């Protein structure tokens, strides 16, 4: 891991992928920056009945109705009161039923990193507090462990609600 941490830095590298990272219960997660459409502050949502607890509701994003997922709740983490750093990361994902725009509520946005291709490694069976099926890889950046999420899979499973271990709705 020590080697990989040197390879990953904030500089531009030709064969690297950029990740936006965010904080969730003290851990740092990364999403492919190409999937991120925008980051916006927390705003009141319209609730949708008959949906799992982690589906907070929908918001109006410039005329589109966009669902908002609470990632803490999705991963079975403790609830917190949304504060000033709470943000919605709006991502565009490819799912089984086409492309979707979805917002995810996270504790705070952290940073943008270049992760050279090959500098990350596949996740172990157990990975922090979340289900490894949603983890694409682990990267060590500046001596910190960053969990790179398979965002397509995460969102798709969250919306279509296929039962997955450790990711049960309330």
């Amino acid at each position, binding site marked *: 891991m020590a080697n990989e941490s040197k390879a990953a830095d904030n500089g531009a590298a030709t064969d690297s992928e950029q990740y936006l990272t965010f904080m969730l219960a003290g851990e740092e997660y990364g999403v492919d920056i190409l999937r991120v459409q925008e980051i916006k502050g927390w705003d009141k949502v319209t609730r*949708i009945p008959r949906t799992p*607890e982690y589906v907070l509701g929908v918001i*109006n994003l410039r005329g589109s109705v966009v669902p908002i997922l609470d990632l803490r709740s999705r991963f079975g983490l403790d609830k917190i009161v949304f504060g000033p750093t709470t943000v919605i990361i709006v991502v565009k994902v490819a799912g089984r039923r086409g492309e979707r725009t979805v917002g995810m509520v996270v504790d705070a946005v952290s940073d943008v990193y270049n992760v050279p291709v090959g500098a990350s490694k596949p996740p172990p069976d157990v990975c922090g507090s979340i289900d490894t099926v949603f983890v694409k890889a682990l990267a060590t950046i500046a001596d910190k462990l960053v969990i790179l999420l398979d965002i397509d899979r995460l969102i798709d499973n969250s919306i279509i609600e296929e039962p997955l271990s450790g990711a049960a709705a309330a």
Partner: protein
Amino acid sequence: MTLDIEMAEIAKVFFQESREGLDAMESGLLSLGATADAESINTIFRAAHSIKGGAATFGFAEVAAFTHGVETLLDEMRNGIRPVTAEAIQTLLQACDCMRDMIAATEAEQPLDQTRIGLLNADIRQILGDPPEAVQAPAPVAPAAPAAPAAGWRIVFDPVPDLLRLRNEPTRMFHELALLGSLAACADVSRLPPLEALDPEVCYLKWDINLLGQIPRKKIEEIFDWVDPGCRLEIVALGEPVPATPAAAASPVLTIPTQSPAAAPAPAADTLRGAARADAVPKPAEAGSIRVATQKLDSIINLVGELLITQSMLSGFAEGTGPGEPDLLRKGLQQLARNTRELQESVMRIRMLPISFAFNRFPRLVHDLSRKLGKKVEIKLVGENTELDKTVLEKISDPLVHLVRNSLDHGLESPEQRVAAGKSDTGTLELAAFHEGGNIIIEVRDDGAGLNKPRILRKARERGLIAEDQDLTDEQIDNLIFMPGFSTAEQVSDVSGRGVGMDVVRRNIHDLGGAVQIMSREGQGSTVRIRLPLTLAILDGQLVRVGREIYIISLLAIVETIQVAADRVNTLAGRTEVFRLRNEFLPVVKLYEHFGIEPDSTSVAEGLLVVVEADGKRVGVLVDDLLSQQQVVIKSLESNFKPVLGIAGATILGDGKVALIIDVPDLIRSVASGRRTNSVRAA
């Protein structure tokens, strides 16, 4: 070659307009049944004529040849040479079908059904009185031209004085003649008047021309083809004497070989290719495009122009406000509101198409069906230009077909029965469309026997759809036919189809956010009335509040809104609450319970009951308050999320917040099935 590519593009236009032309021919032919006025035959003829011309121009010889026969028959009909008989109309209708398939096959570059073409060709020729053999062997059309071209020609051209008037410019003709061979022209100026009497518009000259070279006579004739028949024209091979007698002015001097009618393809000559069945012809893919009248686009452009004016007027206020400016500001905002509304309406109108697109297939359907059933039926279309959303239009077509078939099969009686009942032997089926409020109403009316109420009641009781002792109004009895499980084996016939009952028709209409009901009077006929939203994109909604949530209920589904006193509410089986509305008990649907939200009050007596109807059932939806009514733009929840039970979609309110639209049919179904909300979750 780019020209070929462009021609291929134009050919696509030809295919499209041919299909439209065929539709016009078909509806024209169907209307001929009753009256055969010259103008309607002329319209049909014109459509055939255009298809033939286009087909020939684009090189689709077989289509052109086949259409030629059709055109000839129509031409004789419009000139009164050929009577308009039912048989001829039937043959022409079949020819339309055949042409439609030929065009589809040509477009898809598939082989044509030669057998069918041949048979129809024979039918048409039979009506025309041509023995098939005569056409198969084309009449000799050898022009009476000399076998060997002469060494040269002498041309005497003595034109009419007003030759120039029609722009038959002699110099141009001579120029073309000069291209054929060596030309020597001698003008005779003897008729020229003195200058002061000269009329510059009159041709005073005549010419004597020598043209040397091995030139076919036909080439020369072509050049003089257009000149007035009154002109004297003599074309004589050099060495032959010029005939002394001038041709009679009344008749054209030139004999222009008339083309023989285009030879029809030999029928059934190619049985192998005939193996391609007509129904196997692939249909061109339905394009996701829409043809918009320029007028509609122009109106949008105008509105955008007005919007810009309003905007610049309003932005003027950013400079600061003087006295009297609040009034102007208010005026500007009013103008903005009006512009916005008009622009919205115009943009929505782009998606609107006249219902004739759905109605047009019915004359043919009724024509064919009534023949099959041995009934006499006259179809009337009313309000064909009524416009509705393209998607609604596409989806209402099948339910309409079902209703029309049903009317013909069960509603209208045979001619004998009708006469026995003291009615005219010809039944009437009317399809009518009109706007009412923000909706379109489509009615399918017939003057047939009407519904048999005792039989419906008996059947509904047998099937347990209603209780033995249930008292129903006439209207309620009629509408039982829409109940799932009502259609019976007894009703299945070749015409009405199997398995698809009226309940499916109603389901389809509800899925479009519409409603359907039937009214009938015994012996006088039935009317099925369909009410549909003009568009699926916009809904007239009632905003309701439950706790802090706002929901929208389609006004189309709302029957009334009432406040119910506590003593009119009963609890059934200790669980379901019902209330009495006039002589009916309706279940209460508590939205807060259904959607798991915190209401102001859980008591029916303290809230309002919005009575909604779908699938012939009514329920009272308990809400805390009624807010405004407004038009809302329907947004799909599915595009970014997934369908949610009980929710038809979402919309964005004036404050930018999302509000959910309640799916009334689904809500009612869930009550009927005893389905309940999964959990009442903590707020």
